[in-house]
């Protein structure tokens, strides 16, 4: 795994023209900007104790998913994502524009597999009481499973719901694979637009972190943050991540396409690179991030780094070693503020980078260890980093449009 496949430096300039955020901090760009500047964090240490999660801030779903029937056909992660996707389309000014939506390409980074906790628990209890006849499981599942739950479990049905609710139908692809899926969604969509294979795309993802079945999966690997919340860099011996809840979507398009329809850009998506370090030896993540940094393109001017560092080890310490080699770039860990939204963390980082560039500032640090420092004056470049808690590394360069 020595070579790096990246989207080529854009031959066609690609702009971020729409941002949709619906997270634990609320919905919309102004709400987020205000909360970030107030260092507000919405964290729940009690409901799932000892596990810590960032709960989704409720919204009026009807505003983006008008049909109750559609809302009922989805589970929470799909409602969150479909809602955020709608915000992104609104932000880009293409909501309801049938001509554009019909040729808009979509790359969604998704998990899936949501369980019906009561059905699972009941079956396991009955089995514990000696119900072990052949076919017992079959009969219970045939009786107990809601037929529509399947549609909430399928990874590609977030994209399916976005197509149904918002009419995005140019093409629909769903990438799976935890954090790397979010990086690759941006990488492939950018590469296609840069090469003229596409004009406009919707990219992003969503997660509902308030899920015990998801906590079980990460507890297998000992990744859940327990007992007491702390910023990502200050977790020390209490390593791990608090699952986050939220949807982050972006509309990206060629500069020419944006200009032709009079769209205003938030920022330029200049390049996205990704790779897979083997992680068999310590130091490989640091080295891979260094390599990606060099692949990213010219870093000049006033820059910052927004990282999705998870708090899981050894990935976070290795990433910190990389960051300490680049002291000129003020760092912000999105995981401190939003928790870890897995597939969504990288699109979330892109969204916050584009928002910050468009507002001419980055939000204040939230880190008692001193890795994050204040930044004065407007940034011209923000590097977004996505280091997977277990596998996968990615990086993007987002730039201000002068």
């Amino acid at each position: 795994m020595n070579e790096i496949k990246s989207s080529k430096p854009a031959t066609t300039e690609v702009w971020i023209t729409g941002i949709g955020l619906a997270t634990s901090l609320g919905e919309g760009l102004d709400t987020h900007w205000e909360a970030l500047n107030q260092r507000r964090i919405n964290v729940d240490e009690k409901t799932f104790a000892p596990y810590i999660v960032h709960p989704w801030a409720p919204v009026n779903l009807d505003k983006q998913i008008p049909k109750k029937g559609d809302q009922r056909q989805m589970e929470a992660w799909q409602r969150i994502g479909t809602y955020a996707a709608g915000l992104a389309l609104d932000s880009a000014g293409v909501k309801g524009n049938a001509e554009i939506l019909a040729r808009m390409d979509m790359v969604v980074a998704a998990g899936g597999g949501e369980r019906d906790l009561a059905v699972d628990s009941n079956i396991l209890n009955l089995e514990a009481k000696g119900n072990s006849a052949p076919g017992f499981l079959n009969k219970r599942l045939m009786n107990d499973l809601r037929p529509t739950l399947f549609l909430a479990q399928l990874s590609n049905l977030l994209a399916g719901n976005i197509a149904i609710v918002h009419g995005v139908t140019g093409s629909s692809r769903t990438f799976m694979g935890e954090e790397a899926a979010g990086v690759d969604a941006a990488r492939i969509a950018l590469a296609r637009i840069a090469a003229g294979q596409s004009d406009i795309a919707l990219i992003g993802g969503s997660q509902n972190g308030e899920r015990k079945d998801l906590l079980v999966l990460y507890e297998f690997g000992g990744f859940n943050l327990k007992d007491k919340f702390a910023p990502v860099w200050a977790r020390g011996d209490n390593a791990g991540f608090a699952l986050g809840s939220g949807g982050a979507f972006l509309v990206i398009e060629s500069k020419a396409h944006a200009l032709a329809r009079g769209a205003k850009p938030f920022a330029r998506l200049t390049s996205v690179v990704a790779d897979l370090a083997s992680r068999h030896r310590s130091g490989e993540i640091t080295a891979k991030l260094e390599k990606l940094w060099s692949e990213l393109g010219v870093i000049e001017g006033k820059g910052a780094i927004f990282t999705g560092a998870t708090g899981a080890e050894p990935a976070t310490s290795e990433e910190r070693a990389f960051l300490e080699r680049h002291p000129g770039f003020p760092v912000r860990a999105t995981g401190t503020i939003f928790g870890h939204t897995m597939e969504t963390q990288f699109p979330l980082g892109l969204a916050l980078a584009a928002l910050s560039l468009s507002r001419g500032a980055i939000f204040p640090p939230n880190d008692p260890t001193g890795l994050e420092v204040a930044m004065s004056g407007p940034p011209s470049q923000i590097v977004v980093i996505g280091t997977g808690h277990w596998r996968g590394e990615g990086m993007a360069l987002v730039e201000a449009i002068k």
Partner: protein
Amino acid sequence: MTATRDKFGRPIVVVTGMGVVTSLGAGKTDNWRKLTAGESGIRTITRFPIEGLKTTMAGTVDFIPVEPFSSTDLCERLGEVVAEEAIAQAGIGARGDFPGPLYLAVAPVEVEWPQRQELGRAIGPATEVNYDAMLRVSGGGRFTRYHHRFMFGSVANHLAETFGTKGSPISLSTACASGASAIQLGVEAIRRGEAQAALCVATDGSVNPEALVRFSLLSALSTQNDPPQAAARPFSKNRDGFVMAEGAGALVLESLEAATARGATILGIVAGCGKLADSFHRTRSSPDGKPIIGCVRNALADAGMAPEQIDYINAHGTGTPENDKMEYLGISSVFGERTREIPVSSNKSMVGHTLSAAGAVETVFSLLTLEHQRIPPTINYDIPDPAIPFDVVPNKARDARVTAVMSNSFGFGGQNASLILTREPV
């Protein structure tokens, strides 16, 4: 000198290696022999108890053992087998050093019942089982392997390491169009000049009780259990659903230029890819057929070909009442008068529906059709559906002159994809 770019100036994308596993067997030779003999790989399920199920047959792959069994482990193993076959045929790179990216279509990964039951046992009979109790026993390193196993990216990571593909491997799902989408991602990367070769793999090993029940509850599966070989009846009047199946397909794609330069044997061309999403319903196609029509037209336009140039259609042909009807509407709208003449057959009548793998499995079969100039049949075609007057190549394979094949995939969530494969550059 042969031109290495197509009429649109893009690098021509060729296939230099193929691998396939289905319920008929492992490898191209075995599969092709049985496919053209009209054999069925569908059997009564023996992997788990079938009491209480409405559908009791499937196209399982039981001849490649995985211990302990999980659908994800089988998925991974099948992916390995087909990638190995494809890379060996292509003779590309060095062992464990494939010179390009991996695009993997894979069934969504989930913790399965055996693992959940293991947690139940770990909790013990004295305590009520619920997710809080499961959480209490999940940590401490006892089940670390299940974290690694049930990450969505785990199969792609494993294949990327085994075959030494380059960069970040992509795991994708577009439901039953996934296999076609994986190939399309490879085609696009080569056309962009980003890669000279790509390994496109699609794999599915999902025949387990819950997966079967899920499709059953959506009334998507055939319940004609006896005899199992006769359950899959694409385009027949008495079709009543698809048959779940396992399998995998792999293609080594290269630019014509790179393949020619290294003297590789060229097995076929991926001339065009089309896709279009449907926003009508989560499990049903738009009744006007527009998304399917648009998808097929997009594939023709991408290849720069006219409908008259297609000699054979490798249908999605699941055997559900809905799919086959909509596929006829879509095809007949594009192909017009020629619809009755053009052979349209469904491999799924024999191998079942390999779900995430289907698009790649059927692309391999389409390329074998071009190679052997022989069209595999649609078996179990005893009662034609008068509403679908396709020439389905009923029950017996047929020799034919085939220069261009269209392979269609249509999936839940409005996922449509069509590929056009040819013998020679067009």
